[in-house]
């Protein structure tokens, strides 16, 4: 395995979720401090694996997505840290750069009282763009010799603590498709919280591993075993992953995660209920189709909102289809 490997790490840095994670005892959580220490150790291990290995770190902050570190980027070596005789210097600069830029970005949130959803999608797209640039750049300079695009083995590792945001279904799916096209593997490490449907799909569709951490104290153990071997090596070294993947989609109209959806025959938009006009491509559907489809979902109400007393299905057929609310 002589190929250099590129790793883009996406850190889920939602302060609220990390606070919850630190407090949690069942399942046991992990504090951000401990997490960061183990993470830095993992970064160093990745860099140490091979000279040409590269790394990019993205932070998904509330409402923001930032590049915290990249091997090709500038090094924020402030040299305020005393040189440590026990640490290999490149490791030190890498760690310092990541932590300093993180602290800087966190500081910018002073005075904000509400947390916005984290910019996970932004991070994913930025990571993909970064990988695209790295792989296409490395192919152009011929002086590099063997450093062709194919030789870089790119992948993305998402370290997640936040739950799914169903509103991001479409951009996440689009990112997954781009990743498939770029042949980027997406690994997911779920440190805290319930299973993440979209990220499961991301890992499954790109051939990556989805690992649910059960013992966060030993996070480094998980990362070393599951995420250190590059994809090319995983044919020989099996890494743990999930064998059950939730493939449900979120509807376009209410961003609900649905089991049975109604798909526009023109643009493939997914709706949780039959609509007379597709909100995406404005295709009009015949009234007969609507009636037929409506008749087929006698449980639509009770399934989505089990608490409310449901109207009998016959009554639903008569009424006009509820208009699609247009969010945004």
């Amino acid at each position: 395995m002589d190929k250099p490997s590129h790793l883009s790490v996406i850190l889920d840095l939602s302060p609220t979720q990390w606070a919850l994670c630190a407090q949690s005892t069942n399942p046991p959580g992990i504090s951000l401090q401990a997490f960061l220490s183990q993470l830095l150790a993992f970064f160093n291990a990745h860099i140490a694996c091979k000279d040409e290995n590269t790394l990019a770190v993205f932070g998904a902050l509330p409402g923001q997505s930032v590049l915290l570190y990249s091997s090709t980027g500038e090094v924020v070596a402030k040299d305020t840290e005393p040189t440590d005789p026990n640490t290999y210097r490149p490791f030190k600069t890498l760690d310092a750069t990541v932590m300093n830029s993180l602290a800087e970005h966190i500081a910018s949130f002073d005075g904000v009282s509400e947390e916005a959803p984290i910019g996970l999608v932004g991070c994913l797209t930025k990571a993909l763009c970064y990988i695209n640039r790295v792989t296409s750049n490395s192919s152009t300079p011929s002086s590099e010799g063997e450093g062709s695009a194919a030789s870089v083995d790119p992948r993305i590792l998402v370290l997640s603590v936040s739950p799914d945001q169903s509103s991001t279904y479409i951009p996440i799916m689009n990112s997954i498709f781009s990743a498939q096209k770029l042949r980027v593997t997406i690994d997911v490490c779920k440190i805290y919280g319930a299973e993440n449907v979209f990220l499961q799909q991301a890992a499954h569709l790109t051939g990556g591993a989805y690992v649910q951490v059960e013992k966060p104290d030993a996070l480094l153990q998980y990362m070393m075993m599951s995420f250190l071997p590059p994809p090319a090596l995983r044919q020989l070294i099996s890494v743990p992953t999930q064998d059950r993947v939730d493939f449900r989609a979120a509807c376009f109209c209410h961003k609900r995660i649905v089991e049975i959806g109604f798909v526009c025959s023109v643009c493939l938009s997914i709706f949780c209920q039959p609509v007379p006009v597709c909100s995406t491509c404005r295709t009009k559907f015949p009234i007969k189709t609507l009636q037929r489809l409506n008749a087929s979902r006698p449980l639509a109400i009770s399934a989505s909102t089990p608490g409310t007393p449901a109207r009998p299905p016959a009554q639903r057929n008569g009424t006009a289809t509820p208009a699609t609310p247009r969010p945004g």
Partner: protein
Amino acid sequence: MPSIVCSAQASYKKLPGLLELTESHLQWTKAGDKVPSVKVAHSEAASLSRSKVGAAQVRLKVGLVNDETGHNFTFTSPQAVALAEREKFEAELTNIIARNRANAPVTPQLPSGPTIAVPTPSPATPSTPRPLPHGGTPARPTPHLSRAPPSRAASVASDSRTSGTPVSDPTSDFRLRKKVLLSNPELAQLHRELVMGGHISENEFWEGREHLLLAQAAAESQKKGKPGQLVDPRPQTVDGEIKIVITPQLVHDIFEEFPIVAKAYNDNVPGKLSEEQFWSRYFQSKLFNSHRASIRSSAAQHVVKDDPIFDEYLEKEDDDIEPRRLREERVDTFIDLAATSVDHEETGNEKDVTMQAGKQKAVLPLIRKFNEHSTRLLDTALGGPAVKRRRTESGDERLAQLDLEDLHDNQTSTGILLDMQDRQRYFDGRAVVTGDGAAAGPKVDFREALQQVKSSTQDWSARLAQLKIDKKAGDAALVSMTQNVASRLDVKMRKHDLPEGLFRQMTTCQTAANEFLRQFWLAIYPPPSEAQMLTVATPAQKAAKAAKMIAYLGKTHEKVEALVRTAPQEGVDPARIKVAMKPVLDAVDKALEYWRLKNANTKGPR
């Protein structure tokens, strides 16, 4: 007892007995027995072979339609008698086989009159059956029809029936279903278990599988065309005597192929010649010789005689450079090779000297006959002589012909643009925050959380230096991950080692549950499109069916439980059965839950 056409003493499998040919069967009865031990329906006879004339034993072999080996009979009478007897059988059977073969392609409009065979060219009934002037079997059209091969008869009948609405009447429907099942063993297996087991009705089983029946009906209603064989009566030489067996089918074919013979027949029979005389003279005439489908005429050469009647109809040998019968249609200019032959005389190719039309004069009539035959065949297939399309010579039409669609550049069509409405909202997904995730769990003040994060970023260096992984947790993580990988590896490595019987039971249980699920959802959901459904069930029927299916599905758990219980007896880990049946049970549970909810709904407050 049907009338016996001919009979002879013959042994079969070295046992003496009596071989008889009746109106409908070829049968052999062992000496002393009353019931024939070998009985072959006429329609089953497919081939005939016999021992040589000079051979010590006089044998006859009858090959069957679905059994090449067939039956061997040895005629046991004294040589001379045996030969004569075999002769008779052979002639009769040849006829029958010829009819079987002729019947194989669909020619239902042909009235199949009685067939006779006589030594040397002899009369046969023309297509209109009428009593024969001399011996032989009297005309009996009806038994003949019933004697036609049964399979053929059935499909001929279906041809006319299934052409319109295929699955309308029950008998053909039944036949179609049977055919579909026969051609699909897996479906047949399911059918056996569910329908014959009395779980669901025949109609329910086929509901949602109509496309199979439609496909079968469509496949059957395809018409078979006329066989392309050239009419070529083959004479058989027996004891230096030449015989041609004439069947009505043959007569019909000859008349169709050679209209001149039909003309001669009309002119002369019954006036100048009797039926028998007509045919015997025809087969000896030059006219017949010129109609031969091959040029190897050595055997027939010496019998050809001058015949004042038939020679009148003799046409000149068609071996000129120009064929006598010119094609009437004009060849389309675009495919006419001759049209451009003079266009490039200076630069064009040299003429091919090896290929010259009519170089070998003897084959010319034959080639032309083949061509004519092909033309006739095409015409019948297309329903009458090709209609002469008189093209208007306007240039536009010619140009339109040249303008092939494939030559067009298809770049002009841009396709349908995906016109997205409100594009913005697909990019700012955070505009709508559904509260599903955030609502759960304890609320955390953002500012406080932010402070925590801030403090976490301080002093990282010292903590990194002191990083230590808890040994217990590390070991536990290692074990769980190893298990994860090992279980996958295990699945990959494990071979299928379930006992045959248990495995079959599991498969049965699974397919049955699947079918019930299919039926259930079919009853719940509307048909994929209104047009396709042949029988539209009323809502009440559907509800009843769904309830019935639910009852069946409710038992699936018990069935699986029973399987799990039997597993240890077979030496199989019950857990494996559970794992294998889990997906089915999950699907069943889903249906049961749905049904429960639905019923709760309808019974709920109005």
